[in-house]
């Protein structure tokens, strides 16, 4: 019997509001990272998109998890403005198609991870190691799969997922960017942490911390 956790749309709404808060809080940090290797708008774009998400979901009730996540996705797609809009938007849109309505087990999280990667790769055509958000997300999903194989508890698996995401994010520093605006910099893109990998880590961190707090 695999371990399950109950996550209702009220909880997910709470998680999105916390994601919005952390991205708004890190607006300057993300923009600074993007100024080094991109067009200095990642923090501004993410903050704008998630501020709108917060406004849109805060006072509404949703009939199920899918409905809520779809609203978030559509809001991001139409308000973010940069490449992170379609990328995160498609990721959340894919999640909305498969998200369980209440009971989540390790397989639910793995499937969510896989559909995120699939959506981002379809649009962005990137692989791991190209200094993008996938450098955070792919190791995070791999950690979930490995945790399942090792038979770890759901709480441990989520912890491992967050840890792998953080390591993946930091591992973008020496990488050469071959996708996105940073790729125009060539060798000069080395030595900087990728802003997309950073926002992905912040989002994963909030999700994991919130889910774990629910389990205690």
């Amino acid at each position: 019997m695999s371990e399950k956790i109950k996550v209702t749309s009220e909880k997910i709404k709470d998680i999105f509001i916390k994601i919005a808060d952390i991205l708004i809080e890190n607006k300057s940090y993300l923009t600074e990272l993007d100024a080094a290797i991109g067009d200095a708008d990642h923090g501004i774009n993410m903050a704008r998109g998630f501020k709108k998400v917060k406004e849109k979901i805060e006072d509404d009730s949703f009939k199920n998890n899918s409905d809520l996540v779809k609203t978030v996705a559509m809001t991001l797609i139409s308000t973010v403005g940069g490449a992170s809009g379609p990328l995160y938007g498609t990721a959340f849109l894919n999640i909305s198609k498969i998200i369980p309505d209440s009971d989540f087990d390790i397989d639910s999280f793995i499937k969510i991870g896989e559909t995120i990667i699939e959506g981002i790769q379809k649009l962005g055509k990137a692989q791991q190691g190209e200094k993008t958000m996938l450098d955070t997300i792919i190791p995070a999903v791999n950690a979930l799969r490995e945790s399942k194989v090792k038979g770890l508890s759901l709480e441990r698996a989520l912890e491992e997922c967050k840890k792998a995401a953080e390591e993946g994010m930091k591992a973008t520093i020496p990488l050469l960017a071959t996708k996105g605006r940073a790729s125009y910099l060539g060798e000069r893109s080395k030595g900087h942490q990728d802003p997309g990998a950073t926002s992905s880590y912040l989002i994963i961190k909030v999700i994991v911390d919130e889910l774990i707090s629910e389990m205690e």
Partner: protein
Amino acid sequence: MVSILIVSHSKEIAAGTKKLAEQMKQGDVEILAVGGTKEGEIGTDPDAIYASLKKINKEDGVIVLADLGSAVMNINMIIDRFDEDTKKKIILADAPIVEGAIFATVEASIGEKLSNIVSSIESPNVIKKKQ
């Protein structure tokens, strides 16, 4: 006649490219241009791209010319929203936005078909500057 959609991060680039292309226009090639975010800043607005693609004459096909990352991603994401038959008629060309728009306009004006216009604007001759 093939239609042309120009998508840029900048409202001015989109409008300026359309203006340039229209100088070459004969007949009634439809050219639409979208650029910038909803707030008029640098970026792309998927809602505006979707509205333009919905509105533009798609009968003989549409060539889309775009500049950078998010424009390309937004277009690909939006093309996916159309039905299978329509999808085949909307081609995001692997061509530079200004030269591509101008050459495509000339060819569309003489009634060239979609696939021919795409292969001609995707050729390196389009960007040739040195004699």
